[in-house]
């Protein structure tokens, strides 16, 4: 039995690599199905703009190969995803997920958006998760909540959407009264739009591939926001002050050819383009246009990272909570493993006892029924005495989060079958 995580994140892979690994919700089931076919008792795929991670319960040996093959295929060419990846097992894997959900492992320390992303990953992967990962992800969400409520790790404005506001505020004297154009209807765009609106920015247009979704967001924002399709949006680059883009398009939709002629009509007025898309929605060449300031998700996260510096002093308290919760989970997990193992040990020993008693009693056929019962009783008492200390030790170890290690020793000493082989 084991828990494992394999993946890449913002520390191990650059944006252009992470873009290729990022999974749309619709792709999760197929990818999980493929890697779980190599053998595991459950899997969850967590894919955000900063990380793509596969969590497994009891993975077979071929699972890791399957994951890296899958990711290498998405990378294309002859590149190997392993060079960007990492693998963690057991307590380290649990600790990793808890650190992710609490924002300790985020590019922006304490970022709260990851909490929702962990929840989404769990929801989407539920049919494949299995009981152990189900419990693990539930507890990860609780750990995230606990860290945020008991420490100052989530204070301040260190998220990418709030960084979008900070960047725009370095271009415009006042954000109040500025007009914004929203491209795409992703959660990130909606979140950033809400941040901008709270600063007094007027969202004049929401454009999306599907008009209905654009209209739903426009109605949610109110204030006379118009809904358009993407093809109708380009003209508005001439008038908007801020463009916020977060489409689900697999390639850049804001291209030089589409917007350069329109931007030329701005007479030098600055245009702030915030590209929150993954993959990026805006062609990098657009940044070369005069008075156009283009920022992608990495830029915004770099800005937010500065705010996160303030949060660093709360890291020890957050790590302490994570440590406590890892112990708690591991105790549960250890107990989960120990109970059936103890039963198996007792059954095995009882079989031996019973066989030996039967053999002895066959040789002592002259004994009275009372004597035979006494011998039977004696053998059971002896077995109980023998098993008492190991049972207590194993339960104590499980409660202390060391059950898994003790169990391995027990299996080796008594030649117990592995549960997964049963």
């Amino acid at each position, binding site marked *: 039995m084991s828990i494992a995580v394999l993946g890449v994140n913002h520390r191990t892979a650059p944006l252009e690599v992470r873009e290729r690994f990022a999974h749309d919700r619709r792709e999760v089931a197929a990818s999980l199905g493929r890697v779980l076919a190599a053998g595991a008792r459950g899997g969850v795929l967590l894919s955000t703009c900063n990380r793509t991670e596969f969590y497994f319960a009891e993975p077979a040996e071929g699972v890791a190969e399957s994951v890296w093959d899958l990711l290498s295929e998405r990378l294309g060419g002859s590149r190997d995803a392993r060079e960007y990846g990492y693998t963690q097992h057991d307590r380290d894997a649990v600790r990793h997920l808890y650190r992710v959900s609490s924002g300790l492992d985020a590019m922006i320390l304490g970022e709260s958006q990851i909490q929702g992303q962990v929840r989404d990953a769990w929801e989407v992967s539920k049919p494949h998760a299995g009981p152990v990962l189900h419990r693990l992800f539930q507890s990860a969400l609780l750990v995230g909540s606990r860290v945020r409520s008991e420490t100052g790790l989530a204070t301040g404005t260190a998220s990418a959407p709030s960084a979008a506001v900070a960047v725009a505020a*370095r271009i415009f004297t006042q954000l109040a009264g500025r007009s914004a154009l929203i491209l795409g209807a992703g959660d990130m765009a909606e979140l950033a739009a809400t941040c901008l609106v709270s600063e007094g920015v007027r969202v004049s247009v929401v454009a999306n591939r599907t008009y209905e979704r654009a209209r739903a967001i426009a109605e949610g924002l109110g204030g006379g926001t118009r809904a358009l399709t993407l093809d109708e949006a380009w003209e508005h680059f001439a008038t908007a002050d801020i463009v916020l883009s977060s489409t689900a398009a697999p390639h850049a939709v804001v291209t030089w050819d589409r917007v350069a002629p329109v931007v030329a009509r701005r007479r030098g007025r600055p245009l702030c383009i915030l590209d929150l898309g993954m993959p990026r929605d805006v062609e990098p060449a657009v940044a070369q246009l005069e008075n156009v300031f283009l920022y992608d998700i990495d830029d915004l996260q770099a800005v937010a990272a500065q705010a996160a510096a303030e949060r660093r002093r709360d890291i020890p308290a957050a790590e302490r909570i994570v440590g406590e919760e890892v112990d708690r989970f591991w105790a549960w997990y250890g107990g989960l493993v120990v109970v059936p193992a103890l039963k198996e040990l007792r059954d095995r020993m009882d079989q031996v006892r019973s066989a030996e008693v039967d053999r002895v009693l066959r040789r002592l056929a002259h004994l009275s029924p009372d004597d035979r019962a006494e011998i039977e009783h004696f053998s059971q008492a002896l077995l109980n005495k023998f098993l008492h200390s190991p049972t207590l030790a194993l339960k104590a170890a499980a409660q202390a989060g060391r059950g898994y290690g003790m169990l391995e020793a027990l299996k080796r000493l008594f030649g117990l079958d592995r549960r997964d082989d049963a």
Partner: protein
Amino acid sequence: MVIIPHLIAVGLYALAAALALAPFAGMRPASRPVAIGVPLVGIMAHAVGLTRLTPFHGVAPTLSMLALFLMILQAASDGLFRASAVGVFTGPLATGLVGLAILIGLAPEGGAGTGQAPGRSAWSILHITVSVLGLAMLALAFIAAALYLLQFRELKARRFGPVFRLFPPLERLDQLNHLALVLGFPTVTLAVLLGFGVRDGGAAPVDAAQVVWGMLTWVVLGWAVGVRVVRHWAGRRAAFASIASFTAVLLVYVALKLAAPGTQRFL
């Protein structure tokens, strides 16, 4: 005693410059009352010292006055535009100008403080004061333009270091540049008119170099204002125009000073 207020001023200006520069070195920024209070106390001490230099004989009082106006404009920029980063330029510049004035000699031979100061009409003193104020405004426009270009470069290059964090927004710097030019032009116009009045009225001798420099400053500033107001230049182009204008005025001044050296005239 004109030197002591000047020494106090130069010390406080140096401190103000250090306070303005400290956050760029990663140090904690000074509290706002301290950041504003230190230059204000320096301005008061400086004003006391400068009034004792009337009727402003020689170049040293002019340098001192320019420093004073720069610091006043810095305080105004900070108060009105929250543009404390202006102090990054004005602090060291004012410190240098006052220091240079002290080194040159605040009261040159035959000037104030020697008991032999020749008379200078009130119109002449007003001409000098207004001219230096106009020049200080042109300098402020230059500083705002320089800050704009630095911030522009950082924003374009997606660098989010001290300039990004500590400089004002681009648009505010553009507005500051615009205001400095728009207020500076009538000020310089008035200075030129006063200069002609002083020369024609015979209140003070005015040589050709002063006329050339005064007219050139007026024309250049007029051009910078013209492209902003009439041709609606803004942002980077307007910033380049301001920098070119100030550089031209400065280079012509240096050229004229080399052609006719001396510390007697205010030019």
